[in-house]
């Protein structure tokens, strides 16, 4: 549970921690829309610079944000590669034949094996992955001693590089923005913010208070349910259900031996919770007062103005183009 950084709240001080959650939600929403409206790479790089500045001002640890990017790093690499491979506009920067013959296939297998071996020792998993991709590229390009049973031209166009950088940087900005949101906002504050923002929906019959309560309860029970699952797993493991080995058919049975008790316990808990809440006079739908009231301050105003400016600039740039 400790290694899940993406989406994780980490307590701290700084600009972003002082903002009202509603300001953060709305601002990040509008900033994301603004980023998607940008057309060319110069504009995007400016936006990236602004995002970076935001991190510095808010004294957010850049290291933590990079750590949060780890899970999607493979996705970024693939996006990059696909954009390069599929884009065919502009000046040709490099053109090479990729040879598939017996030697090159052996070469690919060799590079793969070396990669897996190094993975066990090395800690720089990301760098090793990049090295693996480069290895495959060089093997396919230069090992052409035999007749090919298949070959294709791998062309890198100028536009390809441009577009891939564009897409990757855009993804980075989006993820940085959302990471800032979840890093600096407690889940309960986030829920309060959403509840407040969705209040107008009461007119069409959607009770945002009940919705927020459901989310809060679910969040509160995540650690409890996790502990229960550990207990059930230990109990079933003691009966020979080995969760790490086994064929697919066995695994199904093992998963059911975990899920059925979990569901039953969850239902039992929710009944007990409902009784406990009703015993303290909770009536769903009735108006309740709250202990923490969200209030705006000057920094919320500054932030909103800033967001509005960015959004307006994006619209103007789009209209001009």
């Amino acid at each position: 549970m400790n290694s899940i950084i993406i989406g994780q709240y980490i307590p701290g001080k700084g600009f972003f921690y002082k903002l009202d959650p509603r300001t953060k939600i709305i601002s990040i929403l509008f900033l994301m829309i603004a980023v998607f409206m940008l057309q060319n790479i110069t504009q995007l790089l400016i936006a990236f610079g602004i995002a970076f500045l935001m991190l510095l001002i808010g004294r957010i640890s850049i290291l933590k944000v990079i750590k949060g990017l780890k899970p999607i790093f493979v996705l970024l690499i693939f996006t990059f590669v696909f954009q390069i491979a599929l884009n065919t506009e502009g000046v040709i920067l490099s053109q090479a034949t990729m040879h598939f013959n017996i030697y090159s296939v052996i070469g690919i297998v060799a590079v793969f094996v070396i990669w897996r071996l190094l993975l066990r020792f090395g800690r720089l998993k990301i760098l090793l992955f990049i090295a693996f991709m480069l290895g495959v590229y060089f093997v396919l390009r230069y090992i052409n001693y035999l007749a090919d049973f298949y070959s294709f031209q791998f062309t890198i166009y100028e536009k390809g590089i441009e577009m891939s950088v564009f897409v990757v940087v855009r993804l980075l900005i989006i993820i940085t923005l959302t990471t800032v949101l979840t890093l600096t906002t407690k889940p309960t504050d986030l829920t309060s913010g959403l509840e407040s923002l969705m209040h107008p929906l009461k007119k069409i019959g959607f009770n945002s208070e009940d919705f927020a309560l459901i989310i809060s309860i679910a969040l509160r029970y995540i650690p409890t349910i996790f502990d229960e699952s550990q207990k059930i797993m230990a109990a079933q493991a003691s009966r020979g259900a080995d969760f790490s080995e086994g064929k697919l058919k066995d695994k199904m049975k093992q998963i059911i031996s975990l899920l059925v008790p979990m569901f039953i316990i969850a239902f039992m808990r929710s009944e007990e919770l409902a009784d406990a809440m009703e015993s303290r006079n909770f009536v769903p739908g009735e108006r309740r007062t709250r202990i923490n009231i969200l209030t705006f301050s000057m920094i919320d105003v500054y932030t909103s103005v800033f967001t509005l400016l960015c959004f307006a600039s994006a619209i103007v740039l789009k209209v001009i183009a």
Partner: protein
Amino acid sequence: MGIYFNEVTHEYASYSKKTYKAIQNISLRIEKDYEFIALVGHTGSGKSTLAKHMNALIFPTSGSVDIFGKHIAQKRDKKISYNQLRKNVGLVFQFPEYQLFEETVEKDIMFGPLNFKVPLEEAKVIAKESLELVGLDETYLKRNPFNLSGGEKKRVSIAGILALDPDILVLDEPTSGLDPAGKNTLMKLFTEIHQKTNKTIIIITHDMDLVYEYFNRVIVLKDGELSFDGTPDNLFRSDVLDSNHLDYPNTIKTLKYLKEKLGLDVDIYQKNVDDVVVEINRVIANE
């Protein structure tokens, strides 16, 4: 053959890098026959952690455990099948009724044996026998476990572990939440199993009355360390209990009170209510 602990320490890691030593430098020998052991200690003394080492659910942070000849150290050894150990050492957790998940009692009890590749027909026979061992008849086989009473559920889940025919049985507070009658029924069941098969049974309990009445060896843990390992009679004659925030059995307390307040020359070390009555009658008759 048995479970041998060698200077075992288990630390739990936490988010803030400070670790918590659940058990420290525990060395113990538990043989696979003839022992009927009570594992006691205050809340948080490390009893459950110690029990989880016994079937290799968790590994020691330092030291080692030898379970039926298999050497368990800090790292997973690919050559050892830890799953097989679950057959040698059967571990029943507190509130085992929560592990029930199948549609019929029979299927749930068969879950264990089937996991160890026992043929279906043989597993069915084992299910019936295990039910008999816990005092339930065959009409229970086709019933839905979720429709049973709390006590019946407990017994079905214990039958589920007995079905594995473990050499050593470990139970974590099996009588918690039961009324005195229920406690006695269950303890009589374990005593019967022990007497019939001579297999070692280890029970984690807080109940000193049970400890004195049924067990021949007591292991006391305090703050993760071994505080006492011997017979209940020696334990209650020593001063270990006082320093461990543990209480004496009601038989001893009652007789002690009578001795001090009424001056009756009773032998306070009686194991159960019947013996107490006999002793009091004896002393009164002599006066």
